[in-house]
């Protein structure tokens, strides 16, 4: 049940309200940062009507106002009916964060070693993180790597980015 009138908020509502408070503060911080950055947008002296700063600054102000409302409601332990946060810090750290880090590592590997090696390594790690073990773990990453290679770089003719250190494809192509 959500926070209603004089009713004591339940655990779900309290959690949602706590998250709303943080999300509201983040929105305010983001809006203020972008609002201050908007003063770097060059203005022409003969701007008729509204200039290039008007829209971004208006959006920043509205977003900050909504962030403030959300933060205040969160501080008062109130949330909209049916609005339930399903964010759990421990789940994020244990399951999502490693995958998020992997995605950036994959990007770095892609730049350094090209498609084949980086995708193979990233797929092994991703399958492991999703809990695949045994034959599936051995077979799926190389199979998928080759399949996607032929689909995108072979069939569709997508330009394969050059690797900065070493590219396995060069080895296969001689």
């Amino acid at each position: 049940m959500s926070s209603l009138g004089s009713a004591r908020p339940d655990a779900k509502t309290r959690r949602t309200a706590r998250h709303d408070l943080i999300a509201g503060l983040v929105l305010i911080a983001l809006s203020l940062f972008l609002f201050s950055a908007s003063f770097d947008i060059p203005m022409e002296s003969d701007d008729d009507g509204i200039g290039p700063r008007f829209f971004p600054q208006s959006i920043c102000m509205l977003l900050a106002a909504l962030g403030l409302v959300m933060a205040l409601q969160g501080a008062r332990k109130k949330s909209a009916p049916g609005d339930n946060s399903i964010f759990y810090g421990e789940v994020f750290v244990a399951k999502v964060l490693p995958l998020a880090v992997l995605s950036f590592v994959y990007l770095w590997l892609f730049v350094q070693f090209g498609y084949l090696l980086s995708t193979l390594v990233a797929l092994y790690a991703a399958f492991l993180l999703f809990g695949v073990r045994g034959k599936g773990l051995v077979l799926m990453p190389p199979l998928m790597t080759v399949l996607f290679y032929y689909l995108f770089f072979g069939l569709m003719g997508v330009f394969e980015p050059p690797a900065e250190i070493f590219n396995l494809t060069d080895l296969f192509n001689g």
Partner: protein
Amino acid sequence: MELLNGFITIFSSATTMLFVVCGAVLGVIVGAVPGLTASAAIAMLVPITYYIDPLSALAFLYVIGKAGRFGGSISAILFNTPGTTAAAATILDGYPMTQKGQAGKALKTASLASAIGDLTGEILLICGALTIAQFTRQLGPPEYFAIYVCAFLIIGSVISNSVIKGIASTLFGAMLAMVGIDPITSEPRFDFGMIELYNGFSLIPLLIGLFVISEVFTQAAHDRSKDEHHETVKANNPSDNQLSMAEAKRCLPHIGKGAGIGSVVGLLPGVGSAVACFVAYGEGRRKAKNGDKWGTGVVEGIAAPEAANNAVSGPSMIPLLALGVPGSTIAAMLMGVFMIHGIQVGPQIFETSGDIVYGLFAAGLIGIVLYFIIGWFGSAYIGRAIEKVPAIYIYPSILTVAFISAYTARSSLFDVGVACVFGIIGYFMRTLNFSTAATVIAFVLAPGAEQALRQSLLLSDDGFLIFVDRPVALIFFAIPVVAIGLRLYARMRRENSNAELLDTA
């Protein structure tokens, strides 16, 4: 006549026809995989459309969207898990029918209702888009700005349980669209000295991050030990796998009403299939003679929501084609494809690219027939096949495809990084109940809104008072105010009545 030409265009091109067939098959499969939505599949496949002709590209993605809405019913009926949110109401009667050994009957009902509902919506699109376009041709920048504001606020206010979070998601999308050169003065904005940001964020990495990578993260967080094992309940007799003529006739009024509800909901920006299916289910149950049996496994309980959720598809394209204003995520993505191929969307599209528009309508109709055939004869097999492939094999592969798709669009690794960042932002948005769909739609709408406002003010000597002189603009400004007011009023009434109940307890 133009529609006939559209059919001739599709049937005379083997490539386009192949893409329509592939779209129908892929859409049903993608829709049936729990967690993987048609929007996510389209987001991943948009870059592919760089490499094919515009009609094939649009037809492919449009049919995936249609078939995906139907596909969601397969896992809803067979596994008690909706493949898409659009099929959430189908569970209520679909899964009880499976437990009674009537899965075949339930799937055939869903196929029939989806196809009729979709056909109704498509006819409304074909007849309505051109008519509305003829009217909207007379509109100027002030009216367009009002339409954009109306779309922003309606989307923001209905898309989430929290009006504030819905509108904040919309503003966040509009803010992202401000990155890059100013559309009128060409001054750089928020590029922070990065050459990659000079032209702003590209739509594709944003889509892939917010829809696909964030979904993979959500699936990674999902505790699979609690997933049910689904026993196959065999039909007791052959009739349990068939939909009889008498049952189909019983469903027809509910299909008609559901299709009507879905078509109206489809016209409203951002409301979508999930709302349509529950409204149709509730309305159908209220009016049905056997309303007390709904929820225990009756065919009418599947027919009403399935007709409604598919009827949304066609009308949701009307704002895009008649105004150039996408009202749904799929329409926003299709707008991206139009732009990729240099086609200007708006009322003039029927003159400048009529062959593509009518080809798209024809592809939609062919797609409906195709997914009906697939659904009628093959949905049980598709469902069983999907259950045999563990989700833990699917999502790591999707993550890789998402990466390569993000790269494919502009051959830019920067875009891959952007997709990763938006993947994390999307995960936070999903779990904190913000709307990624509202963000994407606003991202597409915002540049047009800004241009319309600035052009309006350049036209006027009285500044913002120009909007007061335009009655059409005033009507569009009033619509979201009334909608939000009604929603807040309903919430206040609910809170007051609950408070009274607590006081008397």
